[in-house]
């Protein structure tokens, strides 16, 4: 097991290095350099200031040097400064990462709370009205754009319930109730989208497991239906569900970009979109790399969860 983890970690290094090359390369493809484009857009910036900024950012150096310096900055957790706000990127990330982690965790939990019971219900009542309703909800979840759902939820909460989420971000530790009010709707929108694929997977795997011999045996020895489904069938059906949940981490992180923008949450997603809109490329490349590293690490954790869920799986 330890060997497997070490090997996976070692394999992740070239993948992440290649990702960093792609991100770094992308930011340099821009005609001219990032700064010229930036200054052309913002106007009235003197030649001297431009030269100083270019020097500070190390844009005069050869590409390979710039890349190595950036890589070192990333590894030493000091990824430089934002071009626009002049704030250290690490400080900006320090503020925005907890927001995204909270949103993503809540969304994931809400998604599972919706998906697993509905998926099981759909499977145990296959081809009955409850199943059709569950399946239609699942396919809708995959098809409704989260930015549309978010917009509708905000508007109709205001129109019908005369309620809008409190403005101005409050952290979970400072004001838990206010924080929960701010996070509930965005997490529900994101969770609904995530629940769709999990629900479909739960339905099909539970259906498959319910046909297994040991489930028939459980029925035959007179166990209660609830115990057969939840204790015997569900645990084994969960393994492919974990794969789906793992595969959704990318969707989740991408979803936070949109949802944070709509609900004005100062998370990493919004920081990235703003940086992209202002072409603040040191922030863009750092954020994208951070997301890639997180995904690769989480995927490894998901793989290790299989072994915990299914003792038959042994990694070597």
């Amino acid at each position, binding site marked *: 097991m330890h060997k497997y983890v070490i090997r996976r970690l070692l394999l992740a290094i070239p993948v992440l290095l290649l990702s960093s090359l792609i991100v770094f390369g992308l930011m340099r493809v821009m005609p001219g350099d990032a700064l010229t484009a930036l200054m052309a857009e913002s106007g009235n910036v003197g030649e001297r200031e431009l030269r100083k900024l270019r020097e500070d950012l190390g844009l005069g150096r050869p590409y390979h040097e710039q890349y190595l310096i950036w890589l070192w900055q990333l590894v030493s957790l000091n990824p430089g400064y934002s071009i626009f706000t002049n704030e250290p990127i690490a400080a900006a990330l320090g503020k925005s990462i907890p927001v995204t982690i909270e949103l993503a965790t809540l969304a994931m939990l809400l998604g599972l709370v919706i998906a697993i019971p509905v998926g099981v219900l759909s499977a145990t009542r296959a081809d009955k009205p409850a199943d059709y309703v569950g399946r239609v909800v699942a*396919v809708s979840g995959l098809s409704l754009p989260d930015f549309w759902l978010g917009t509708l939820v905000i508007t109709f909460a205001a129109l019908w319930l005369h309620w809008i989420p409190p403005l101005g971000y409050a952290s979970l530790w400072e004001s838990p109730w206010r924080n929960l009010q701010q996070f509930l709707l965005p997490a529900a929108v994101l969770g609904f989208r995530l629940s769709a694929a999990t629900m479909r997977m739960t339905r099909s795997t539970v259906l498959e497991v319910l046909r297994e011999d040991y489930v028939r045996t459980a029925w035959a020895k007179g166990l209660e239906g609830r115990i057969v489904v939840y204790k015997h069938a569900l645990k084994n059906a969960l393994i492919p569900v974990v794969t789906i949940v793992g595969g959704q981490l990318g969707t989740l992180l991408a979803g936070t970009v949109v949802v944070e923008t709509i609900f004005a949450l100062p998370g990493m997603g919004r920081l990235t979109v703003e940086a992209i809109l202002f072409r603040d490329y040191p922030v863009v490349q750092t954020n994208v790399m951070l997301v890639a590293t997180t995904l690769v690490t989480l995927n490894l954790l998901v793989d290790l969860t299989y072994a915990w869920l299914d003792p038959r799986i042994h990694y070597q």
Partner: protein
Amino acid sequence: MSTVTARVAPFERQPTATPRRGEALWAVIKRKPLGLASAALLVLLVTTAIFADVLAPYDPLATQPEIRLAPPSRDHPFGTDDIGRDVLSRVVHGSRISLWVGVLAVGIGTGAGMVIGLLCGYCEGRLDLLVQRLMDAIQAIPGLILALAIVSVLKPSTTNAMLAIAIVIIPGNSRIVRGAVLSAKQNRYVEAAQAIGCRHPRIITTHILPNVTAPILIIASIWFGNAILIEATLSFLGLGTQPPTPSWGLMLSSTGRAFMEQAPWLAIFPGLAISLAVLGFNLFGDTLRDAWDPRLRRQG
């Protein structure tokens, strides 16, 4: 040698899968109401896009400030926007952008993914190892974020959004094709073709490619829905189609959100159009899988 080839070739050319696949698909569409619904949605979308000029009651760009933010009525069934443009006409014309982005992004992404997957699966070895790591590296970045980064570099426009989506599609597709090629290579008839000295291009196109088309078409139809969704999201964030071109995502962000409480129809109809189009492709992907995936066919 030539006689063996002559004997083998007509035998293997016979089961060209197209008519059988067509029949299987038609059977599933007839049998499953959701399959029929998805086919109907797609026909509706394609017809709307092709005949947008005829179907749209007004010019999508023509402004009539005197009737700005008018609610749905007989003259304007979907209402008008903040500068008096007819929302129905804009939604109808928006279908062109969505479909166009879908066709080109999925076409380029699937085409490139197929070529890469075929070469990697067929050649294996160092090339495969290197290209697969590159695909891993692209896949490590979530699709939407990669698309956002690409568009920010290329400048926001419909064409660049389409290119960005195509790049996002390539790794997943190449991996599926590679897997299908690796398993197709195990077949005896491929070994036989190699043994009788068929050239590689012929083996790939005649013996391997037919095994790869079904998974590729299934995944392409699902990607089509995703491509529409990503384009709408990019336009919503201001990084896709630019005003005044009518794109569903842009309609939602530019006026839909600003006037949501005053004029909810500005957001409801474009959003509904995106959802129905994506739903159509998702359900159609499921239908294709039901029809063409032998594993599911046996269960059904």
